[in-house]
């Protein structure tokens, strides 16, 4: 009997922005990974983004921060704390799981759901700021917009990301960017956060992705392999490990 991939697995490649198994720390760093942002730089970037949000939303009176699991959630919490610090008013935050709205569900075994937790005040008439760690293809954000539509009708939706690595496949852009990180599609970007991974860092890796991509493509089944570009993705390493453990198909 085919085996389930517990934890849902992640996706690689431009077909979708990758998403690690919910709540699992990233233990596999790229072999020759290079830290492009350290803890202090992440802290400063978030502080600047928080100030930009205050400026652009007239003091963030109606703002709700919604993080996309896994790593968007602690980022939303950190931004909310900064907004509170600066403005002295509590900024509501929550999480928005987008798994059920993804456009690539059929490409991978069914994955575990993340947690959705919207502040009790609801999102109608509010300014929702979506928060995620890496902006890549834009497909996660597209799914998040659909998910929001089923929850209510915000007055406006904005997007804040820690890292924008380019290679968009949809007409989507971020309103607030912690760091623009030009990458090639062969590279992978991993964001590590203390709450999940035990440390704060953004790591850029170079090695092994091609192989990881091929492993995955072979694994996804012939029908989809053709559409899998030589892939790069910030969790390709995790992903390969997951593939190997679940390889009983």
């Amino acid at each position, binding site marked *: 009997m*085919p085996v*389930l991939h517990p934890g849902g697995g992640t996706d690689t490649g431009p077909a979708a922005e990758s998403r690690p198994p919910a709540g699992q720390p990233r233990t596999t760093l790229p072999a020759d990974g290079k830290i492009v942002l350290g803890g202090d730089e992440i802290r400063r970037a978030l502080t600047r983004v928080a100030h930009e949000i205050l400026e652009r939303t007239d003091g963030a009176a109606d703002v709700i921060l919604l993080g996309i699991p896994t790593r968007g959630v602690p980022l939303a919490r950190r931004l909310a704390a900064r907004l509170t610090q600066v403005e002295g008013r509590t900024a509501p935050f929550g999480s928005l799981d987008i798994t*059920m*709205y993804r456009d690539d569900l*059929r490409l991978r075994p069914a994955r*575990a759901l993340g947690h959705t937790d919207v502040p009790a005040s609801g999102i109608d008439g509010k300014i929702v700021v979506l928060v995620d760690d890496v902006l890549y293809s834009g497909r996660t954000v597209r799914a998040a917009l659909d998910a929001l539509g*089923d*929850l209510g009708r915000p007055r406006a939706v904005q997007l804040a990301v820690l890292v924008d690595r380019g290679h968009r496949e949809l007409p989507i852009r971020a309103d607030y960017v912690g760091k623009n990180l030009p990458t090639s599609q062969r590279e992978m970007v991993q964001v590590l956060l203390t709450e999940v991974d035990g440390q704060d860092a953004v790591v850029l890796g170079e090695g092994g992705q091609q192989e990881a991509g091929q492993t995955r493509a072979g694994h996804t089944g012939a029908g*989809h392999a053709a559409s899998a570009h030589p892939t790069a993705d910030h969790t390709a390493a995790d992903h390969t490990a997951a593939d190997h453990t679940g390889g009983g198909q």
Partner: protein
Amino acid sequence: MIRHLISAADLSREEALLILDTAGELAQMADRPIRKLPTLRGRTVVNLFYEDSTRTRISFEAAAKRLSADVINFSAKGSSVAKGESLKDTALTLEAMGADAVVIRHPASGAPHRLAGWVRGSVLNAGDGTHEHPTQALLDAYTMRSRLGRLEGLRVTIVGDVLHSRVARSNVLLLHTLGAEVTLVAPPTLLPVAVGGWPCEVSYDLDAELPKSDVIMMLRVQAERMNAAYFPTVREYSRRYGLDGDRMGTLPEHAIVMHPGPMNRGVEIAASVADSARSTIVEQVANGVSIRMAVLYLMLGGAEATA
């Protein structure tokens, strides 16, 4: 995820917990303005019911519709089955129509297992004869976990017509997988011969078990499946194995009372017990939709599970 769900024993501990966790996330949806997810758009789920059912069929139908799947309801009455069509021919017809999943309830134990060999889609057992009813066991486990906070080490007492109960068998198997301790209580005539091989305890004395139970699950006396006299009178059965207000009083403070439905009030369960705050009977129905959404999502939502 597993391709077919025929028996509760098909599920490993990890898979069962993934279903319960997924159902927990999906249960939140009930409070939203739009209770629909686009996840199974374009997929077809066939409800193939050879036996009467209200809650299970409606529950599966609601679950599939909330995930945006197309649902085809097929009941043996008013179909070609009444003209003598065999299960296999019906299955091939469904196959030709492109069913991604077939939810089957059948009076013959083992019918879903046979069906799984004939169709390409997933088969979900919604109750086969006196064999199994795995989604009921999953929703029962979910209800226990949400009320009592855990399953590991929970003492569950299942009382009544175990012999004819697919709910009891599925619950014993699943709860054992999840680390709960199950005790079956029934008159000897209403226990299966092979019950000694089940991963559970057996007792004939309800009053002795009540004070040590965290969960008490009452089963319906399935008169329609009884072809012999299993106990002298309904009244005597009710006196010895029915749960009334006095018996409920001997349960621990935190214990809950469950019933898979439909109930025979006044036989296995007193009306005052069924309507008490300890009773989870209505909750079980609501949880059933979440559990079936979780199962459908995990079985149909991802890539084809075939190699």
